[in-house]
């Protein structure tokens, strides 16, 4: 009577083949408890303000992805909350992630008002991450404050040489894109210390308080599209303003900024630049160096210096179309796998095994080779 039955009791949540490959995850968030983090703030005045009068993270009112999630801000903990190294290892086991590059992604920090308090949080987060992750043999990305390049350099010099610190983590947004010359000292310190710059989306500056943005009311509009738009603006700004001619060894990874826009940016940048390159010589870096043109075609910087994380990867259904899109998007050179654990947009490395769009070579580039190259693992 009946059919053969066996109970499935697997901890694994991804195809078994994923366990055979090396999987490096470029965006794994840990979430220290506030009181644990604040215990690391060294400046007495800053700690006092952060723990009493202001609370730890004062932020102005704004739209938030939480409005689209049944459970509100709990969406940031959809999978749980990693506080220590053993939590990270437990989470990674389910998804065949071998090397998570963890960050203390306090992604609302850029939005807060007070630079001294924000720097206090950066210092505390870096020390917390060293103690609880880098010292426990987990690769870690250190926080770098975008709002204070001078302090950013100080912090890089203080933390970058520690074992298992493999990247710097900061944020992109629509205000002051990273092509601005004020960031040159930061780039110089990163290149000297062999660290790639990971830039993550920060809680939205735009579209709030702008003519278009105030009317954007849904998660799809805002989270789905503002970060990719910010990313495009930052990428094109860095390339056209000569960042990579001055720092050819700098690698920049945009996290959660989307990726299918690459074909558009790639061809359009080249077309516009080749039609009218005359204003490149009056950008500050070129002007100072007496240069006329970029040293390479704009799309070559995209291929060589810019990397993108994959999550969430929304593939076209047909594998032929998906393969074409991956090719046009220079995925083999630019894409790096990310899970975004534990957030609501989690992306386990399932696609790479279930879609026929990936051959072995492409899968390996995305899952580990591109990351190995820029992290120098």
């Amino acid at each position: 009577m009946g059919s053969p039955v066996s109970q499935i009791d697997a901890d694994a949540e991804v195809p078994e083949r994923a366990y055979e490959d090396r999987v490096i995850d470029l965006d794994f968030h840990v979430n220290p408890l506030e009181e644990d983090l604040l215990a690391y703030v060294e400046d007495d005045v800053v700690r006092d303000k952060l723990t009493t009068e202001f609370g730890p993270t004062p932020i102005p009112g704004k739209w938030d992805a939480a409005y689209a999630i049944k459970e509100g801000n709990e969406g940031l903990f959809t999978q749980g909350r990693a506080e220590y190294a053993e939590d990270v290892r437990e989470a990674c086991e389910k998804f065949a992630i071998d090397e998570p590059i963890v960050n203390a992604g306090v992604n609302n920090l850029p939005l807060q008002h007070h630079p001294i308090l924000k720097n206090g949080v950066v210092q505390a987060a870096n020390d917390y991450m060293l103690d609880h992750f880098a010292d426990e043999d987990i690769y870690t990305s250190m926080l770098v404050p975008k709002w204070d390049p001078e302090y950013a350099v100080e912090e890089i010099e203080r933390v970058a040489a520690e074992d298992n610190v493999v990247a710097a983590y900061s944020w992109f947004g629509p205000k002051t894109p990273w092509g601005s010359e004020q960031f040159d000292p930061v780039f110089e310190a990163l290149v000297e210390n062999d660290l790639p710059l990971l830039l993550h989306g920060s809680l939205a500056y735009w579209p709030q308080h702008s003519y278009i943005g105030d009317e954007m009311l849904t998660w799809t509009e805002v989270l789905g599209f503002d970060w990719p738009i910010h990313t495009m603006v930052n990428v094109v700004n860095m390339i056209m303003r000569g960042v990579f001619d001055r720092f050819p060894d700098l690698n920049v990874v945009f996290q959660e900024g989307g990726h299918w826009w690459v074909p558009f940016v790639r061809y359009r940048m080249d077309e516009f630049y080749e039609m009218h390159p005359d204003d490149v010589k009056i950008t500050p870096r070129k002007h100072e160096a007496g240069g006329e043109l970029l040293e390479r075609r704009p799309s070559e910087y995209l291929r060589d210096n810019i990397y993108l994380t994959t999550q969430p990867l929304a593939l076209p259904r047909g594998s032929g179309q998906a393969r074409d899109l991956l090719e046009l998007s220079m995925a083999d050179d630019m894409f790096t796998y990310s899970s975004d654990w534990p957030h609501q947009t989690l992306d386990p490395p399932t696609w790479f095994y279930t879609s026929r769009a990936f051959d072995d070579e492409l899968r390996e580039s995305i899952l580990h080779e591109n990351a190995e190259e820029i992290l120098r693992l």
Partner: protein
Amino acid sequence: MSAKPEIDDGYSRVASVGEVPRGRGIAVDVDGIEIAVFNVEGEFHAISNRCPHQGAPLYKAGEKKINAEDTWTESRGGVNEDDLTVSCPWHLWELDIESGEHEVSGKCIGTFDAKVVDGEVFVRI
């Protein structure tokens, strides 16, 4: 030793009632088909174990989160007893546990007959 329960042909025993706590599920392979079996207030429901979104194992819905005490909802997805839905542990798609439907996408997964006889859970594929 108790007598074998009386049950129609085509049903396969997948578990004892006590093995599936209320609000949780188990996964079984019945003749090569992965099925999640959930206990919803003592009623048992069988549904494909693979989420129609990206293939998460649905039986993990309701699993305790890492450091659950420091989060609000404590579990990864879960069973909603009032709505008769299960929300997926990865991205919380809500699936009708009786029809297997996901309303927004229009996607649908298989559901199966399940019944309890003498404290044993049976499923028919």
